[in-house]
């Protein structure tokens, strides 16, 4: 091995060590990661198929009803308006529905403590973590390591402007506003982090 190759070997080791310092003891634990195989795809397909059948049957019924009405001379078609009435729920809620039911990231970082922090603004525009599991009583904080301020939103309630090299922590816990499921923490037109709101 040449001198340069030896220098290269040592340089790579130093660079890697400086960029990724040794983790504190106990932090290399898989307990912080959620293994979420995408196994609900079949269920989703069944639900979508059922919804499609309901829509087709409804449209067909409407067409047949109109056809029959128009066939009677001098009779004004009186097709009842197609209205959808939400079934009353026992626990009225204003929680925002999730953007997705499963995280695309595959794994979601689960952390304890009151605030779950997501870092944005890296040059590759990839948030860290890409998916964070947040419990109803936890709040979301955002650290912006980028050189420009970022407007962030999670649904309609959580909106903030995070300055460059700054941070922002929402004052409200997610459970009061976001339904369980995956909500997008949007911070740029091209990228978002996933906030997996856990079931209570």
């Amino acid at each position: 091995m040449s001198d340069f190759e030896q220098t290269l070997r040592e340089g790579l080791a130093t660079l890697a060590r400086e960029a990724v310092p040794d983790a504190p003891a106990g932090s290399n634990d898989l307990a912080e990661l959620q293994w979420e195989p995408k196994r609900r795809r079949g269920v989703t397909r069944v639900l979508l198929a059922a919804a499609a059948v309901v829509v087709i049957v409804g449209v067909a019924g409407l067409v047949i009803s109109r056809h029959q009405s128009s066939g009677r001379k001098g009779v004004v078609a009186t097709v009842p308006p197609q209205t959808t009435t939400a079934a009353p729920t026992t626990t009225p809620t204003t929680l925002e529905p999730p953007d997705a039911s499963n995280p695309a990231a595959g794994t979601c970082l689960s952390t304890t403590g009151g605030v779950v922090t997501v870092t944005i603004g890296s040059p590759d525009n990839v948030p860290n973590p890409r998916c964070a599991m947040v419990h109803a009583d936890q709040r979301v904080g955002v650290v912006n390591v980028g050189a420009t301020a970022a407007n962030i939103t999670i649904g309609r309630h959580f909106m903030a402007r995070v300055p460059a090299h700054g941070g922002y922590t929402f004052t409200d816990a997610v459970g009061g506003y976001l339904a369980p499921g995956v909500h997008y923490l949007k911070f740029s037109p091209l990228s978002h982090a996933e906030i997996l709101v856990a079931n209570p």
Partner: protein
Amino acid sequence: MLSGMAVASGPRWPDGLVELYRAERTKLVRTAFLICGSVAAAEDAVHDALPRVAARWDALQNGRAYLYTAVVNAARDAARRSRRSVSFGETGPVSDDPAQISEESMHLQRALARLPERQRTAIVLRYFADWDDDEIAQQLGARLATVRSLIHRGVARMREEMER
């Protein structure tokens, strides 16, 4: 004691993978970082690879090799995505906390970032991860001669970049 390894809504991680992850996580992230140039993306690469490895764990003869292969693949994907979204070679150091990186290491990272992705991966696997030519050839899906050429040209280019 593996308490807490499985979350309530997910299956249990294979015990062997838990041990392997504990032992290798830092080196996995470092390897991925050198390939893709971002600590955040490197951590994601490791996290993304884990479920794939876990899903096949029982059938694997060499779990460690498979884990490294999965992480390197994910890091290469991240590097290619990064190149599409920003000009990788012109951004300089892309570590999440450049303040902790010495000037000498920044210089090395800039040189590394200017290499084509396959050349960079070959250099990292040889000189950081200590893989031999056969293993690198398998990883890259290339012939041995191609790997040797990639490394030879990569070293030459690194030398040029470093002497600038």
